[in-house]
């Protein structure tokens, strides 16, 4: 845990208050017994069991001792015992937690099983059990609370160790010949430190409260010694006479317990930093070009589409930064780009499925004849209905795991066409058959986990076909699938497109996949469209990025004796894009002109590129040993 993180934890108001309280408590623990220790023992026969008076602000106990002073003096004992118990708990927990990693497989499993069994029992039950064995008293209670907390702390250590031990870098260290103990010291413990510190802090709070509980029951600190729990127990008997006698130690316990717990939690929050989201609206971007004429048969028309997210340090980032995209009825368009190019977010924004935190704007956005921007969610649902079908990247996670596949499909018809359960299910089975899922009646009654990846992606396509979509957006539909299955799914998409006449937008990082299915390719880089080109003209791609992309990916015809073309550098971070052409820093043709952002301009019929220096030489795709389109 770095210094900045501690500081961040303290900057958090809750964390700051908690830390401040702990400092005050620590000072009290040191000072109070020295200053008021004797006064707190002083009995006053003249003022037995009094309520609040000017002399005794919180009243007195049965022997006439001042409650306030006793509560203050008890700080040291209460905190000290709690910290002692915490120390026992943490040490025992870490030992038990790390043991399975040190011991062999069999002995390790035994330790894990024992810890798991012990964790099943609530801490208080274990504490009572140990309190019987170690005897009633402060020593017994410290041991009891420490040991009772050890199993759950050990479980925590084990979980963390297991998570870290499963990481590749631990495997890599093992392969590199790093020994078992060094592995624990260098790789395991440092990487589980943060959660352990957090939990030890919270544990201290829990120990304090548990200790108060045991003392309150009379099983902890024994007279004449006293801690807050003891005072509370004595005070409760006289709550009708002097409520303060019970409430004051209670408040002390709560304040101290909360200080530990809240400090731990605010550290935990800092460790798992969450961006502060503000729901203000980003400034409108300067209007760039006049809105182009809408094509009459467009099923999707987007102009200057922008998606903004609140940035962690304030302000906004624009992962999608002025995209222009038109898809004609029945057309197949591929969007290609690397991760971070904004291609998936473009698709989600178009379908009105962008994440909640996103702010979507556009000069114009029309999807299937509907302009969804500025409408309420209910209106969008009503208008778009089933006109846009989505196929997502990961078929494993895109189905509800706890609902049968057939019902998930039938749901579409039931909601949008108000059909009965049976009719909707029959349609689902029919659609599954259309996408060539074998034995669709049986499959419809299965859960998603009983489907293979390829079958799930088919079912996802079938879900889009429950009605007649005008636009199918497939976002990396084959990335999670094997090559042979990828081909099946692509062919299916092609067949579906031919049968239904729906337009298809296929999003992929793989330009070869897109080229196989699509008529037109849209290349995105750093949130913008850099080139639009008909697939048969890919060989004459004009933008240096498109050309480099084509040349740097090996295919089955790549010349093995020559190095692959490469693109220097890496794609820019959305929060930190260069002015002007975003590709310029990686481009060998870049010059001063590229400091101004280029717009999409026609370089050939149906082909547009956003580049000041478009290339015109044909690119020999079979001969890849060219750098960035010099051929």
């Amino acid at each position, binding site marked *: 845990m770095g210094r900045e993180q501690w500081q961040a934890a303290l900057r958090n108001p809750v964390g700051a208050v908690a830390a401040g309280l702990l400092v005050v408590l620590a000072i009290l623990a040191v000072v109070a017994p020295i200053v008021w220790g004797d006064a707190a023992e002083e009995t006053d026969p003249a003022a037995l069991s009094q309520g609040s008076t000017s002399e005794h602000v919180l009243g007195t106990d049965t022997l006439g001792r001042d409650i306030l002073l006793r509560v203050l003096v008890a700080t040291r004992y209460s905190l000290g015992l709690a910290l002692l118990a915490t120390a026992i708990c943490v040490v025992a927990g870490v030992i038990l937690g790390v043991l399975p990693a040190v011991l062999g497989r069999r002995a390790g499993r035994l330790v894990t099983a024992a810890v798991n069994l012990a964790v099943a029992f609530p801490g208080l039950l274990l504490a009572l059990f140990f309190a019987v064995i170690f005897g009633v008293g402060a020593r017994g209670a410290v041991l009891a609370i420490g040991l009772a907390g050890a199993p759950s702390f050990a479980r925590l250590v084990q979980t963390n160790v297991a998570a870290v031990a499963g990481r*590749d870098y631990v495997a890599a260290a093992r392969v590199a010949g790093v020994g078992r103990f060094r592995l624990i010291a260098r790789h395991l413990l440092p990487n589980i430190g943060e959660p352990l510190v957090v939990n030890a802090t919270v544990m201290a709070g829990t120990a304090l409260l548990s200790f108060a509980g045991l003392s309150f029951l009379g099983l902890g600190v024994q007279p004449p010694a006293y801690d807050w729990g003891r005072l509370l127990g004595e005070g409760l008997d006289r709550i009708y006479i002097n409520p303060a006698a019970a409430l004051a130690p209670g408040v002390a316990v709560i304040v101290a317990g909360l200080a530990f717990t809240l400090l731990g939690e605010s550290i935990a929050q800092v460790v798992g930093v969450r961006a502060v989201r503000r729901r203000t609206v980003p400034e409108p971007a300067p209007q760039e070009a006049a809105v182009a004429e809408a094509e009459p048969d467009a099923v999707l028309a987007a102009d200057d589409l922008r998606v903004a997210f609140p940035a962690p340090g304030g302000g906004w980032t624009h992962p999608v930064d002025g995209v222009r995209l038109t898809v004609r009825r029945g057309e197949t368009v591929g969007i290609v780009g690397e991760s971070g190019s904004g291609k998936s977010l473009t698709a989600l924004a178009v379908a009105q499925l962008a994440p909640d935190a996103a702010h979507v704007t556009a000069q114009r956005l029309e999807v299937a004849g509907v302009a969804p921007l500025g409408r309420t969610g209910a209106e969008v649902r009503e208008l778009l209905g089933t006109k846009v079908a989505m196929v997502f990247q990961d078929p494993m996670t895109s189905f509800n795991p706890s609902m049968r596949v057939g019902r998930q499909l039938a749901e579409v018809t039931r909601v949008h066409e108000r059909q009965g359960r049976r009719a909707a299910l029959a349609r689902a089975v029919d659609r599954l058959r259309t996408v060539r899922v074998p034995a669709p009646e049986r499959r419809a009654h299965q859960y998603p986990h009983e489907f293979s990846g390829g079958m799930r992606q088919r079912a996802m396509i079938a879900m889009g076909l429950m009605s007649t979509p005008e636009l199918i957006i497939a976002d990396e539909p084959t990335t999670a699938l*094997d090559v042979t299955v990828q081909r099946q799914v692509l062919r299916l998409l092609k067949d579906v497109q031919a049968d239904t006449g729906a337009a298809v937008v296929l999003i992929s990082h793989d330009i070869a996949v897109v080229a196989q299915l699509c008529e037109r390719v849209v290349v995105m880089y750093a949130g913008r469209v850099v080139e639009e080109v008909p697939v048969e003209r890919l060989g004459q791609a004009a933008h240096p990025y498109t050309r480099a992309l084509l040349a740097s990916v090996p295919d089955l015809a790549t010349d093995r004796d020559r190095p692959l073309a490469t693109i220097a550098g890496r794609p820019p971070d959305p929060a930190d894009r260069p002015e002007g052409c975003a590709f310029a820093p990686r481009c060998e043709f870049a010059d001063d002109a590229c400091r101004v952002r280029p717009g999409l301009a026609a370089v050939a019929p149906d082909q547009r590129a956003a580049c000041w220096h478009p290339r015109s030489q044909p690119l020999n795709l079979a001969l890849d040993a060219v750098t960035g389109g010099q051929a």
Partner: protein
Amino acid sequence: MRELSFEGTTVRFGTGRSALTAVDGVDLTVPAGSVVGLVGESGSGKSTLAKAAVGLVPTAGGEIRLDCAPLRTRRDRRKLQLVFQDPHASLDPRMTIGESIAEAVPVRRRRAARTAEVARLLELVGLNPARARSLPSGLSGGQRQRVALARALAAEPEVVLADEITSALDVSVQGSVLNLVRDLQRRLGLTMLFISHDLSVVRYVSDVIAVMYLGRIVEAGPADAVLSAPRHPYTRTLLDAAPAFGVALDDPVPADDPRLDAEAPSPHDPPLGCRFHRRCPIGPLTRPERTICAETDPQPGAADRPHRAACHFAAEILEVPGR
């Protein structure tokens, strides 16, 4: 550099109903100084084979040898080094890249010698030696994968195993890492097992290509021969499926052909006979008279067939049109 060979290597996971034989009697040799490309779908057991070689998963049978000497102890296994798929996960986020590399340098070296070695290795993989003090978080994916390669080389390995080292990288960065692998291999004469699901990538770096399907090697041979004249129909399917420019999605197979939509069998329950017969374009699916495929395992006679193909009909050359 020495020769790595797997002999009947078997790896099993789990017991009872969830038992799974991930690697099933694999014989494979990586000759000294050459690159063997191992290609297969996810779940075919290719990564498990590499993990078994370096001792990250225990084997249930067979032997892994380095120049005929079986690998038994941890010391033996240090002579094999594995490069992992995800460079974001394979470097300890709390150690500088210099420390990560130095950790793999054999301990007999002195401190100064180790520092010098780290600098040399960083230079070798095309990184500025001054970056030894940076943490992995300051590096891009491609740079981290270079560090991972340097760490593998630091252990002075006899054989390097590369497990899908480009699949987690951005498309525009993949090429440079592949170039580096090829370049290092040629300059240092590395012996290498290069694992990938992408036939095009494997083809680019390998001298020998082995194809794995459901835990078994179904075909292995010189790269050019395997690609131009595959003997196993699965290899042929992979070649067909690889997306390529100018190759249309429609092949001559009619759209209602059942094998187009055949599902890959579960590795928990591999089919009897030939493991590929339910998806095979030249098997009982299209030629009902070929019942042998569903009944007899083609693995035993594989060594006598061309490309050691695990196919009863390996003698038929499967032409690859247009290549």
